[in-house]
């Protein structure tokens, strides 16, 4: 059953659950952050509407800089603005930023410890028809390896809005991972959000049974984890689902509690398995509480064109795959 303390969307299981692109939450969050703090500025690399920065740009034209197709410039200009006391948000597709400008982010933002916020939209293979060149499945790895960088990966548009507003209030360089496609609204306005805090979103309610599997999900795939958990509950397998919306700093306490409770962990992300969120979890568990794990994500391949769900299924990240991973884990 849903964890009621986090006040999730009551329509979460309905066929007609509202679906909104996660990036839209970023656009709304940035607008709200801009209204709350005049130091907030926006920079975009020729993808203003697509990354939803147009809401901010329209309201605050004097605080919006159109950079053109130049992602290295995007983040280095932002670093300079941050040096003067601004709180810059830079948006592009994740494949180009942080895909193309990693060293600039490292040196001018992280090494300098400037509070620049990088929004990488169109992350994951669910970008769909645009094909593999536009499907960033390496960005979590690229960003979480950098000292000083926070990595946020909201699970729906509402959480993206809260994550964006929270990011504006921290003095830390921050990466916000966003997806293109519409995905179900999981949370509500009342769902708490705090950077660095993972939340249990679902706990199976089976009599006299403790959860045997902990699923840790992040971003656009979280809804699939919830669906899988509910189906598994129907099959008599008790599962707990943790929403890991901050990948760095990692909520080690929540992960350890989950591992202790369940004894087995399945991670789920629309990203390469190498270096992603699952790797971050494994780094913690291997050190603190070695626990059998299964990883769901892309296995060392590039994406391709297709319908979003079709591609997600092709790369083994659908509900069935989650359930299979749970069964594999149970046998370990």
């Amino acid at each position, binding site marked *: 059953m849903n964890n009621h303390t986090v006040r999730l969307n009551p329509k979460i299981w309905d066929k007609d659950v509202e679906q909104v692109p996660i990036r839209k939450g970023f656009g709304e969050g940035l607008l709200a952050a801009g209204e709350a703090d*005049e130091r907030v*500025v926006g920079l975009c690399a020729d993808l203003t509407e697509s990354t939803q920065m147009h809401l901010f740009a329209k309201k605050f034209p*004097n*605080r919006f*800089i159109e*950079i*053109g197709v*130049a992602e*290295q*410039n995007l983040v*280095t*200009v*932002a*670093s*300079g*603005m*941050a*040096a*003067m*006391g*601004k709180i*810059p948000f830079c948006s592009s597709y994740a494949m180009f930023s942080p895909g193309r400008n990693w*060293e*600039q982010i490292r*040196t*001018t933002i992280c*090494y*300098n*410890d400037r509070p620049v916020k990088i929004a990488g939209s169109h992350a994951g293979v669910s970008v769909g028809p645009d094909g593999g060149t536009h499907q960033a499945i390496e960005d979590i790895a690229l960003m979480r390896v950098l000292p000083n960088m926070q990595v946020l990966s909201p699970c729906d548009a509402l959480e993206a809005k809260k994550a964006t507003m929270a990011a504006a209030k921290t003095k830390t360089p921050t990466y916000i991972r966003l997806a293109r496609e519409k995905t179900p609204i999981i949370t509500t306005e009342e769902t708490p959000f705090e950077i660095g805090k993972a939340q249990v979103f679902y706990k199976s309610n089976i009599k006299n049974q403790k959860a045997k599997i902990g699923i840790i999900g992040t971003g656009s795939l979280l809804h699939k984890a919830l669906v899988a958990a509910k189906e598994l509950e129907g099959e008599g397998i008790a599962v707990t689902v943790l929403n890991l919306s901050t990948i760095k700093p990692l909520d080690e306490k929540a992960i350890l509690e989950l591992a202790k409770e369940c004894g087995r962990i399945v991670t789920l992300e629309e990203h390469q398995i190498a270096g992603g969120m699952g790797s971050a979890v494994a780094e913690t568990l291997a050190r603190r509480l070695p626990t059998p794990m299964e990883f769901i994500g892309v296995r060392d391949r590039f994406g391709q064109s297709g319908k979003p769900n079709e591609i997600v299924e092709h790369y083994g990240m659908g509900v069935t795959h989650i359930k299979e991973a749970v069964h594999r884990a149970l046998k370990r």
Partner: protein
Amino acid sequence: MAGNLDDKKIRELELQANEIRITIIEALIEAGSGHTAGPLGMADIFTYLFFHELRHDPKNPEWSERDRLVLSNGHICPVLYATMAHAGYASVDEYKKTLRKFGTKFQGHPHREYFPALETSSGPLGSGLSQATGMALAERIDAQGLDAQGLDAQGLDAQGQSLDREKGLSLGGSTFYPYKKWIYCLMSDGELDAGNSWEGAMLAGKEKLGNLIAIIDRNNIQIDGFTENIMPLEPLLDKWRAWNWHTQEIDGHNFQEIHDAIGRAKAVFDQPSVIIARTIPGKGVPAFERKYEWHGKPPNKEEGAMALKVLRELGEKLK
């Protein structure tokens, strides 16, 4: 802000630059690694900026109203450190003893975490101009009156001129913003091989950032050889003109020319300015001058002793 430059002041600056060159050589000998040619070549420009031009306060490096100086080609930091130390930001003695050593403020390439008075960290080439452009943009946002600094309720600036808070002042068809700070970017010619440099140049030209002054160390050398053999940059002035920059070319060792060029750059309010400073790599030590082999290595003890002798003799003459 810069005052007049009379003969006496020029003599003082020449002597100061010579002292800075001596400090650079002493530090490089002790460090046993580091770059020699670029720092010696840029000693005059750094001296001019820190000892005559910049609005700054070494006792209060965080003073928000200071001019900003971004060093893009971080590898010539021996001259930045030496000049800042002589200007009062750090101990000259500490610099000479600890350059590039464990735990030092004076990292092999600039790192703000260790030396917070630096405006930025640098080393990887081609990113400084964009940062300076970002600083100039931030300053323009402030000058637009969003933060209302220095502007009264009627939107009048200190001279009593009226200001359209959104658009700035319109003078002769161009937009003028009441800038209060100057943003300087010091760059190398070799780093203009990097695309990031030109991305910054395009944006600054587009945004007509009259508060931005880039100074290029045109010493014609880079690690692998002469710039025109590695990746030709000429016609260099034309490239900057094409991005809508105000351009000047000067002798980077002539204080009067440096002073006049910066003065002219400050008079241009609707374009960023670039000053291409022709410099001699290794300047001051004839044995090191114009040789790209001296780009990335320090003098050994004997070479260093020879260089110090030459510079000290020059110093005596300047006194």
